[in-house]
């Protein structure tokens, strides 16, 4: 069976970090959009028509708010998926390194001699 591993250790770590940030931020944004915070009004895609043709103000705007909130939650779910994939890749990388007998995937080089220091 061909290897499922398609990214290296650094990309997996990158993916995990970005996914965590994305999930937290998008979930919070989703909550704030659902709570119809006024500060986010610029990010809600409403037009002049929406305001003018509104039978029950501000029902249309509220509906748009909810829509954007749901979009945020969906994006957060996608980030969860990306995070899960990165986590799997990270585990596969560690397993591959273990099999190859190499136990450190990041090596910081340690104490070195300065042969010309006083």
């Amino acid at each position, binding site marked *: 069976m061909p290897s499922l591993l398609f990214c290296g250790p650094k990309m997996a770590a990158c993916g995990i970090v970005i996914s965590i940030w994305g999930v937290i931020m998008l979930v919070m944004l989703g909550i704030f959009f659902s709570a119809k915070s*006024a*500060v*986010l*009004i610029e*990010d809600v895609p409403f037009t002049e028509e929406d305001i003018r043709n509104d039978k029950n103000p501000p029902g249309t705007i509220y509906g748009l708010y909810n829509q954007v909130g749901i979009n945020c939650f969906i994006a957060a779910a996608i980030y969860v998926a990306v995070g899960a994939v990165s986590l799997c890749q990270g585990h596969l990388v560690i397993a591959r390194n273990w099999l190859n007998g190499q136990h450190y995937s990041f090596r*910081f*080089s340690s104490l070195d*001699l300065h*042969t010309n220091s006083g």
Partner: protein
Amino acid sequence: MGSLFRSEEMCLTQLFLQSGSAYDCISELGEMGMVEFRDLNPSVNLFQRKFVTELKRCEEMERILGYLLREIKRADIPLPEGEVNPVAPLPKHVLVIMEQLQRLEVELSEVTRNKEKLQKNLLELTEYTHMLRITRNFVHRSAEVGPTYEEFPFLEKDSMMDYSSMQRLGAKLGFISGLIQRRKIEAFERMLWRVCKGYTILSYSEIDEYLEDPDTGEPTKSVVFLISYWGEQIGQKVKKICDCYHCHVYPYPNSNEERNDVVEGLRTRIQDLHTVLHRTEDYLRQVLNKASESVYTWVIQVKKMKAIYHILNLCSFDVTNKCLIAEVWCPVNDLPILRRALEEGSRKSGATVPSFVNRIPSNDTPPTLIRTNKFTSGFQNIVEAYGVGNYREVNPAPYTIITFPFLFAVMFGDLGHGVIMALFALWMVLYEDNRKLKYTRNEIWNTFFEGRYIILMMGLFSVYTGLIYNDCFSKSLNIFGSGWSVNAMFKSGNWTWDSTLRTNAFLTLDPNVPGVFNGPYPLGIDPIWNLASNRLTFLNSYKMKMSVIVGISHMSFGVILGIFNHLHFGKKFNLYLVLLPELLFLLCLFGYLVFMIIYKWLAFSARDSQMAPSILIHFINMFLMQGDGVPPLFPGQVGLQVFLVVIALLSVPVLLLGKPVYLYWLHNGGANRIGMYRGYERVRRHSEEELSLMRANDMEEGSVPSDLSTSREQQKEEFDFGDMFLHQSIHTIEYCLGCISNTASYLRLWALSLAHAREYQHTTSNCILY
């Protein structure tokens, strides 16, 4: 732990070390780490000093240790994690370590060489096996073709000679077989064809697996070839061509039985070689494993030894050659520790005569020592980047612990980002003992890691200023409820649903209408400003004024700190002739500006905001001495302004001439107390200038200027009025211009906080929400 307020009091001491116990005493002093040695042999060349051979030996050991470390890293052996801090070894142990290291080096290089030879051997045997295997196929193939030697369809017609004619000429059929790199085979074939003109037959076939090229170590593909030729001369030519193309030629067996024997023999030899190689690698790993346990200890021991010999080179021998004399700057508070260290050293070396310490008076300027811990050292380093303070001057570093992160936070001003920054710094602080984080060689990471406490403070302060600016990822948080109400504009104001809203793109909330403005937001900027289109107009005014206030306060504080310096050095006249004019200049001009800002905030409300005067115009008018065009801020403003400008202008010549004239008068007054002032002034001035030229290195700079300065002469010099006047005029110009330009540059607090908010806003709208 010494005080951070001012640098420590130092004294010059002379150490008399018995030559037998000198090494141990210096080792103890090194562990203590609080003294600075002066070079007593400045004229002696590096190579002529006394302990040169020992230093050379240390460097030899360092070289071997470097080689060992490289080999250990290459073999991927893990090094021990713990913190080791061994003391320097005694001279008698040094030979043992040296011998161990040399033995290790010899063994390692021998084993590595053997391994390489064995690997080369193995490669040759493998190639030979491949060659025999593949040429067997050639023989089988040509056996089928066999008796058609008479007709050579691929030979040129004109040089055709058949097998029988060759035999009649007595030419023998010869074979050359070997391996060649795949990329050379075509050129090889063409060369053979051109040179031997068809008297040779070349058959070749590629090997499937990759073999390692012995020279470069890369896997390459090789081709097995078999050349059959007639005649000795052709044979020579073929051999020469093979040499040219760097072929590996192996003897071709004459018969099948011989071939089988050779193959058998090769197989056994290859197996043996594999075993031997395996054992060699195991042995190598064992040796490196054993070395890796103590390699760090050795590294530190050798470093300490080298440092001790370097210091010993700085000392001088006395006449009897039995005693080493060293001159050392030591903090006064640490003298008992110094004595104890010397006793310890003498005891360890089993000396009969103890080494002792003698404090000697000196007129040189001692070095500046400020004791810091891991938290304060970052801030002290930042301050010292601008210049190291003079001896016993007030240290500006403890105030920067607060002002530096605070000013950063004023510019950063974002709650969300501040939290992230603080968390990152907290992670670094909690894991600061982790060896991997501490000793990495990445420069950028090292910079962040060294400043982890600074970054933590900056993050925490940014959280605070983020709350004040009400900015979290460039959106406002509505924690307490906004103080503005739009509804009141409809109820009590003159807005209507149909006409006002439909015909106007922008509407202004009027705080004079009752109910619209219900009082200021409890903490920070009201969140409604995030929805306002004139948000920047409001914020710019607020932030610029705040920057000016913060700037003037900061600068006044710095000037006032000078009081402590003047009082400590006993120069009371400086208080009246330098500090007072400086403060008056600063406060009369810019302090008055701050006063105007605060007065305007307090005196004018929303009701008379139309008539609120512009502070900028008033400030300009103050300098131009005009006051008629605009209504005054408060009664008597014009008179007050004229008075303040006159005082500020008068303080400049006082600053310029006061101190030189006073000192000249004192000098010519002829009192006895001049002597002390003059000499001290002279020494202090020299060290000021020289210190300001040298870079910060907390213990190093004391020695050089004190050697050059007039330490041994007594107060016989002339009071140099010209020099003093020049110095003071430079100071005056610098101060006055600096006041103005630094005040203006505090406006960067406003500019950067503006840029930060806009930057993040653009990032979010472009990247995330699209």
